[in-house]
């Protein structure tokens, strides 16, 4: 490693540490935002109370309601409600998050056109509504299976079982909330998400400063010294990487201590942070290589920051976005990194699991860095 490159990197780091706005952008801002989001979203575990109204009173519906009442899963509870009206009130008031209603005459309707089950939901508990819908749908599927069996029996010439006979067949209602472990606490998700976003904002300033030094003659002064253009670019890259790495490491430590955020296995976290920082360093060089002016460098960096953040899930997790974002996020350094951090929080996750994401981020670093290495020397030396 050339001494001039280290001298340049060291001086840049000194200037950056003296620049409070940069520290706020790269470190303080992301931690504060992650804390706010974490407080707003609360615990990562899902909790819901779903009401059950048995307006039918048949053995079938009673077995269904009794089965749900016996569900005992972490965070998920079912509560019997006397009537539809009461269920509506309780959902509206937030006393329950959703409600399943077995309408009067449900069992009798199975002989003909089955009456639909009703699911009452609230916009304040969208996920609970989805769960209630799923439970009701599962029950309806089991009932349909019974009806098909009865129809098959009739076709064979036997008598169709009665509703009570059907109801006597235990249709165990089970609700298993299986955790795949793919859940990350808000702090552990949004801390790296915000860290990466703000780091992208910061690289606009880094690219701009390189172009400003070209304009003001600072680069010329360096180049008249026994310093090559390569030394200068390597020094700038070392600084960018070091600053980004330190920023993300500080965010990791601070959110772990202050917010209890668990980003995952340390080896995997470090690998992702290093790879993401390398990718961002390469992109910083790319911006400096293609932006015609300092203002354009700022604009380009901001635009890329927002684009990569949006498609990468920095604002809203990708799984909560339309399916197309799942594919788009793979083209975003933010998306790749956040996918890796999410994988680290899976059950039985190991650092090796994030290897594909790390390699994809390194590919970003190589490609962006190669373009920058090819174009930047000519840009910096041009008059």
């Amino acid at each position, binding site marked *: 490693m050339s*001494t*001039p490159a280290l*001298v*340049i990197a060291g*001086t840049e780091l*000194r*200037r950056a540490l*003296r*620049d409070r706005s940069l520290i706020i952008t790269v470190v303080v801002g992301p931690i504060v935002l992650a804390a706010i989001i974490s407080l707003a979203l609360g615990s990562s575990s899902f909790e819901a109370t779903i009401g059950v109204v048995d307006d039918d009173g048949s053995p079938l519906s009673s077995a269904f309601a009794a089965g749900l009442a016996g569900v005992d899963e972490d965070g998920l509870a079912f509560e019997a409600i006397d009537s539809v009206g009461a269920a509506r009130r309780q959902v509206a008031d937030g006393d329950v998050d959703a409600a399943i209603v077995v309408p009067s005459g449900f069992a009798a309707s199975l002989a003909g056109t089955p009456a639909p089950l009703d699911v009452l939901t609230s916009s304040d508990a969208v996920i609970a509504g989805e769960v209630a819908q799923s439970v009701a749908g599962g029950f309806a599927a089991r009932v349909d299976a019974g009806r098909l069996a009865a129809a098959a029996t009739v076709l064979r010439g036997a008598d169709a079982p009665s509703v009570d006979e059907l109801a006597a067949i235990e249709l165990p209602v089970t609700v298993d909330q299986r955790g795949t472990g793919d859940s990350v606490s808000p702090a552990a998700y949004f801390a790296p998400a915000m860290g990466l976003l703000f780091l992208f904002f910061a690289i606009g300033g880094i690219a701009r400063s390189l172009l400003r030094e070209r*304009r*003001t*003659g*600072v680069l*010329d*002064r*360096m*180049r*008249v*010294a*026994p*310093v090559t253009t390569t030394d200068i670019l390597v020094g700038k890259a070392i600084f960018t990487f070091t600053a980004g790495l330190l920023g993300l490491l500080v965010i990791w430590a601070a959110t772990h201590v202050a917010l209890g955020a668990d980003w995952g296995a340390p080896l995997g976290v470090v690998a992702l942070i290093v790879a993401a920082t390398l990718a961002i360093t390469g992109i910083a060089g790319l911006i400096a290589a293609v932006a015609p002016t300092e203002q354009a460098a700022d604009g380009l960096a901001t635009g890329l920051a927002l684009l990569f953040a949006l498609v990468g899930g920095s604002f809203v997790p990708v799984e909560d976005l339309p399916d197309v974002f799942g594919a788009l996020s793979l083209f975003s350094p933010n998306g790749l990194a956040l996918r890796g951090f999410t994988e680290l929080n899976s059950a039985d996750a190991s650092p090796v699991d994030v290897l594909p994401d790390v390699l994809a981020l390194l590919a970003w670093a190589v490609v962006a860095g190669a373009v920058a290495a090819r174009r930047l020397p000519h840009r910096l*030396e041009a*008059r």
Partner: protein
Amino acid sequence: MTAPAETPAATEDVPAPAVPPAAPAAVVACRGLVKAFGARTAVDGVGFSIARGETYGLLGPNGAGKTTTISMVCGLLAPDAGEVTVAGHPMAGAALAAKAAIGLVPQDVALYDDLTARENLRFFGKLQLLRGGSLGTRVDAVLDVVGLADRADDLLGTYSGGMKRRANIAAGLLHEPQLLVLDEPTVGVDPQSRNAILESVEALGAEGLSVLYTTHYMEEAERLCDRVGIIDEGRLVAEGTRRELITRVGAGDRIDVTGTGDLDAFTARVDALDGVLGTEARAGAVAIRVHDAPAALAPVVHAAEDTGVSVTGIEVVEPDLEDVFLHLTGKALRD
């Protein structure tokens, strides 16, 4: 064996051949420099040399090719043709050695506002491979030279424009270069700071430092430079000392005579005098161009007396480089 013929000895009647004086070693020599940017040729065949201890001025208007020329001299720009040698090292083949002899003072203040003057100088000193005690010593020394020692630990952003310019010069002196290149260092500077900068450059030149100084201010070139190269539209149109340039173009001095009486007769009489290059009649005055104003002054006054002209004012105007530039290029040095 015959004795070898004796070499005839020099006698008092046959003077010994004269030995030409050793030419001073050039710290910079450039020849045939050409640089084009697209269809525009910014520098077209410029060549000059600067002797050790000489202050050489590159004088020309904005856009003449000064900055492009010194960029090639400093190795910041590769010429399309031509060659540059600095301190005996060719820029093309031994750039690092050549650059080590150059101290550059760019036109803008090429320093960091968020570092102190001392930190700036230490940074650029390290890039010049200065280390440890010698780095500290040189930083202190150049701060003294430019008069910033008492503000060395203040952020450059708190400096006045003139102080920043002085720090800019200091950074070019750190590694004790053989050639100091200053690119229009007084542009946009207040008169007091400008004078301070010029005094600094004069002092450095007096200490034996070779200086390449570009400017579009004639008075700076006349004050500082031993020799001046006049550059216009990428070409070096003339080169020499101030007196050589003025003489070469025959600009001559001018005597402006203001008076009353028969100015036509006076003009005719003056035209006939030796050493008079020409006259120009103006309202109530006559401008007389002469080879040598001091020598021509007395005959002009006598001519006025002889023709009955009552002289109310006489002004002697020596030609300057602006006149030279105008004569050579047909345009003014500055818009």
